[in-house]
């Protein structure tokens, strides 16, 4: 009758799994490049060099050159900012438009909830590409303008997740206990609910950032929102595909960059989810048997 390794120790070591740290490292590099990329690029990403077209990876150009002789590495580094920051812009819009109503709807009554849910349903039916085309056509073709519709369409996802998490926590008995003490709804949210919903928001943010990054890449790939010759990952990928016969290796580089970053974001989201569910897994009715009595307990003295 032998036993297996205890599941408790397995849960605690999740944060120590290599995948979490690899993901964090990748994202740290990406974040660093987003801020300092254009400053640290070895060459001018916009410098056209007609004499050095389609060069493979070499000493002077570490990742080669593109169809205009521009250094690919520099373009990718400089493009990080545009791609990543605009993806973040979409995520922030989605977060604000989605998470705030998501929390509030639980406390604002049935009619508001009904209306909010129907709005979210409607938004989820819209395909973002066409929405982006429409908005950029109306407002002008720039990436911030393209990110606005993406952000709006990310909002229902935030709304749904935050609403579900808030509902679950708002029904807790300690919330009832706080209401019995006369707490206002705002206080209940601030003190009891918000901190428990944040892990869910964090997980959703990570996956939404991945989705937004893919959206940016796709939109710039299609030429929406891009102002040439500004480099973006998707834009680079697109032009590389145009010249596939001349430089078959070329699209893999920006493609890999997008895939790795998106993968790292999703891995981070998974790690958040696993860690938060391990932390909030309260075994109801089963106190921790390893807890010893505390000195604050005066039971042994006060009993005659």
């Amino acid at each position, binding site marked *: *009758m*032998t*036993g*297996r*390794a*205890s*599941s408790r120790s397995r849960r605690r070591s999740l944060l120590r799994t290599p995948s979490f740290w690899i993901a964090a490292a990748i994202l740290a590099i990406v974040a660093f490049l987003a801020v300092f990329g254009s400053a640290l690029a070895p060459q001018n990403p916009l410098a056209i060099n007609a004499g050095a077209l389609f060069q493979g990876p070499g000493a002077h150009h570490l990742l080669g050159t593109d169809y205009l002789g521009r250094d690919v590495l520099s373009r990718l580094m400089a493009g990080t900012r545009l791609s990543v920051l605009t993806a973040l812009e979409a995520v922030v819009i989605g977060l604000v438009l989605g998470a705030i109503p998501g929390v509030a709807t639980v406390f604002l009554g049935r009619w508001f909830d009904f209306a909010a849910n129907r709005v979210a349903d409607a938004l989820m039916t819209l395909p973002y590409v066409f929405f982006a085309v429409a908005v950029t056509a109306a407002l002008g073709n720039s990436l911030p303008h393209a990110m606005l519709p993406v952000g709006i369409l990310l909002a229902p996802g935030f709304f749904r997740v935050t609403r579900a998490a808030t509902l679950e926590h708002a029904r807790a008995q300690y919330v009832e206990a706080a209401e019995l003490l006369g707490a206002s709804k705002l206080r209940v949210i601030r003190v009891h609910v918000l901190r428990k919903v944040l892990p869910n928001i964090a997980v959703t943010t990570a996956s939404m950032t991945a989705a937004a990054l893919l959206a940016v890449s796709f939109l710039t790939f299609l030429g929406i929102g891009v102002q040439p010759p500004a480099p973006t990952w998707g834009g680079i990928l697109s032009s590389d595909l145009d010249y596939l016969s001349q430089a078959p290796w070329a699209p893999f580089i920006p493609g890999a960059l997008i895939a790795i970053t998106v993968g790292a974001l999703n891995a981070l989201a998974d790690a958040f989810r696993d860690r938060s569910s391990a932390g909030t897994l309260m075994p109801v009715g089963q106190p921790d*048997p*390893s807890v*010893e*009595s505390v000195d604050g307990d005066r*039971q*042994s003295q006060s*009993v005659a």
Partner: protein
Amino acid sequence: MVIGNRNPLPDARSRSAEPAIRDGSLLRVDDLHVSVHDGAATAIRGISLNVTPGEIVGLVGESGSGKTLTCRAVLGVLPPGCAVERGSVSFAGVDLTNLSRRDWEQMHGSHIGAVFQDPASYLNPAITVGHQLTEVLRVKQRLGRRAAHARAAELFAAVGLRDPERVFHQIPAELSGGMLQRVMIAIAISCDPQLLVADEPTTALDVTIQAEVIELLLHLRDQRGLAVLFVSHDLAVITELCDRIVVFYAGEVVESGPAQQIAQHPRHPYTQALLRVASVGDFGRRELEVIPGQPPPVGADIQGCRFAERCPVAMPACSAGAVQPVPVSYRHDVRCLRARDLDNAGELVAR
């Protein structure tokens, strides 16, 4: 009463299909030591107990005292991370500590049945209780569909469910806690085991239903000769139901003996304390007693008697070395150096 095909006991190759009962005992636990947390702590130290056919034995103690772990060792379902370090558990002569999975499948149900505290979590919520019982009958006793249905209705009636045919077609959500526990008991005895292991089966039930379940277990014992290993933290329930009581404290057996004997002449200071805090049966105004202090953490390394630090009559010798159980009366053993010095109320008497 129809007796279904009972699977022969494993290891009974050259013997007959009837269980071999040595020393009159059906279940024998000998010096059992169980470690937890992958060997980090020893939760059970040297537990020995005996159940004879048709006997109802009660294991009583606080949570963490080791009574549930002992049950699980008997059933072969120790939680992950726990292992038997020393000692043995044997049923009708068959050693259970190293039984193969296949032999356990034969053992479960046909020889040892089990009921637990929360019946709803042991039943499939989507399937009718009747089908959950017939499934057992068809697999273990190879009954046909109609025969299984008839037998199931019989069993439901035998456990006191009114309108067994109706209950047959209900899912767990449609039944009350008491009815579900009866269903569990029906499933547990369906293949005529000789021993029923019951781990706090009445703790979650209303007091009126609890009384009915206790009467049911006594009835099953009288009718079928069913032996019961009954675990509870409630000493009152134990004395109502059991023939013998085994008192657990911090992983050891501190007192064991006939139930009435222990209820009227307890000899271990812990048992005496338990009796003081338990419901004594008169509902008059009385002082509510407490036992000062806390039990030691599971697996704590303590020299000598494990109750010594809370014991009102402890002396230095108690913590000097291991305390062995001594008999104080017929089949009544106490693990206490002062057992013979104390009267029923825990007061010291002159020798």
